[in-house]
């Protein structure tokens, strides 16, 4: 017997710099991804504009400030604030990066990789359980793009994520662009990663477009996750492959630079939708995709 699952909802990450445009164009999106930290530290007007979206369009919650990988206890006060925002957004899930951004005395505000070892995985597992005990919705971990590796890493990206997700029941927010960049920058097969991740573990997907960076001190160009350009076709090909093995609830386009290239944003959303539609003969029932409610 075939079980049909609704096609993933397609949307964008909400950015207050283009908040007005986003609100005027809700019909193009099935959902918006909200960065919970923006609701907590960007001031009243930004938070109000976000909370006004509740009920108008489904919202999902994403974080950038947890730094789950820093080797210190989690900031529980921060987590409690996140829990309140997630509840207010009526978000069905809360996601964060499997990374660290700070250490006592320094905050790089940039996602850094962890050594991929069993010992580190165990420390993260304990922290994921704490997150799960304080946030009422499913917790998802996102794979990051990384420029360097710790020499003692003896697990692959997939093994590291699988171990943590298997032990905690956390889902995976698969950033397809990050996978694409990492595979290019570090010379591995992204399809092997996708094949190694258990079917069904991917609950949400991110896509984005970056740039190639050339510096005199680099042996070759690096692809950077700048969220500034159209999604490359190669990343969309990976999305196809994800969709054949997983049934994510959402596919979110991330854009943080050249935000006023609205045509590019809408075109990326259209390209994502057509990739999903092309798989309509497969496990998805695209008739269940609905536009955002604009009646509010």
């Amino acid at each position, binding site marked *: 017997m075939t079980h049909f699952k609704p096609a993933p909802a397609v949307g964008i990450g909400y950015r207050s710099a283009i908040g007005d445009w986003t609100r005027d164009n809700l019909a193009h999106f099935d959902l918006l991804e909200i960065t919970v930290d923006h609701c907590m530290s960007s001031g*009243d007007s930004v938070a109000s504009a976000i909370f006004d979206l509740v009920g108008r369009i489904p919202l999902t919650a994403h974080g950038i400030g947890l730094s789950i990988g820093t080797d210190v206890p989690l900031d529980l006060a921060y987590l409690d604030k996140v829990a309140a925002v997630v509840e207010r957004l009526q978000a069905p899930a809360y996601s964060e990066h499997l990374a660290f951004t700070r250490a006592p005395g320094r905050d790089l505000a940039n996602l850094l990789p962890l050594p991929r070892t069993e010992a580190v995985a165990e420390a993260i597992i304990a922290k994921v359980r704490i997150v799960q005990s304080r946030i009422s919705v499913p917790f998802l971990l996102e794979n990051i793009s990384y*420029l360097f590796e710790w020499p003692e890493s003896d697990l692959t990206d997939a093994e590291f994520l699988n171990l943590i997700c298997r032990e905690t029941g956390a889902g995976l927010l698969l950033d397809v662009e990050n996978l694409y960049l990492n595979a290019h920058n570090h010379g591995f097969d992204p399809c092997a990663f996708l094949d190694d991740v258990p079917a069904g573990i991917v609950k949400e997907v991110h896509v984005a477009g970056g740039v190639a960076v050339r510096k005199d001190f680099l*042996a070759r160009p690096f692809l950077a996750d700048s969220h500034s350009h159209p999604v490359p076709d190669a990343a969309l090909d990976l999305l196809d492959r994800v969709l054949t093995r997983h049934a994510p609830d959402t596919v979110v386009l991330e854009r943080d630079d050249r935000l006023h290239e609205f045509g590019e944003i809408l075109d990326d959303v259209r390209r994502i939708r057509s990739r999903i539609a092309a798989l309509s003969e497969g496990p998805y029932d695209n008739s269940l995709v609905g536009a955002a409610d604009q009646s509010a």
Partner: protein
Amino acid sequence: MTIRLLERQINLLEYLTSVGAIFGDDANRPLKQGLQGIDQASLRLEACFSHEKRMEKIVATLPRTFQLLKDDRPGIVREFVEACPSVDIRRIENARQFHGFMCTRWQAHPPEPPYLRDVASCELAIASVRIRDKAQTSQPAISGQGARFRRHPDAVLLRCAYDIRPLFERGVDTDDVAERRDVTLAIAVPSRSDQPAIFELSPPVFALLEELSSWTDRAGLGSQAELDELMVDLAKHGLLEVGS
């Protein structure tokens, strides 16, 4: 000896926020304990990306200040990186760090142009006011016997040596130079707006708002009828909070 992950993370962040890593001064210097084996060119790229991201946040908060720095900018940014590593993800905190650094620097090197100090302080005040959570306060009748006032906690008062408002109204691309005169400004979000505005206050009104740092009874402010009118006006402009 095994080095704890935390210590290695601290060493890594110290390296990534260092002038050497960001500007490539000591690209070949051996990495600290616990970081050996990590590709140094990749770390340098990481340091550059993080630095660029941080400076974008600061420039977005203090755009006119950076325009006025002109050719001094690269040298000042480098000094800033050396003196003030990133300690907070938030845009406003990084801008505060830069402003604090400049204030210290101006003690030894006077600002150029001379009104740069006022422009930077005003931009930081605007950003601070913009992100503050509005206090949920009642606005009862001002002339009531039990009315009390205080300066709105979100309002920022600023004494400037130059009239910098034209630079905010028209931008700093013009050939305008800020006029040298003592100006008393207030930055606040007016009651029917969600954006900060700059107001020039007369010195007596500025002094009154300075005094009203805590709740003060209406009766203690004198009996002139014009005072009620002024209080209504200040409350409307987001400069005064009225309680009962």
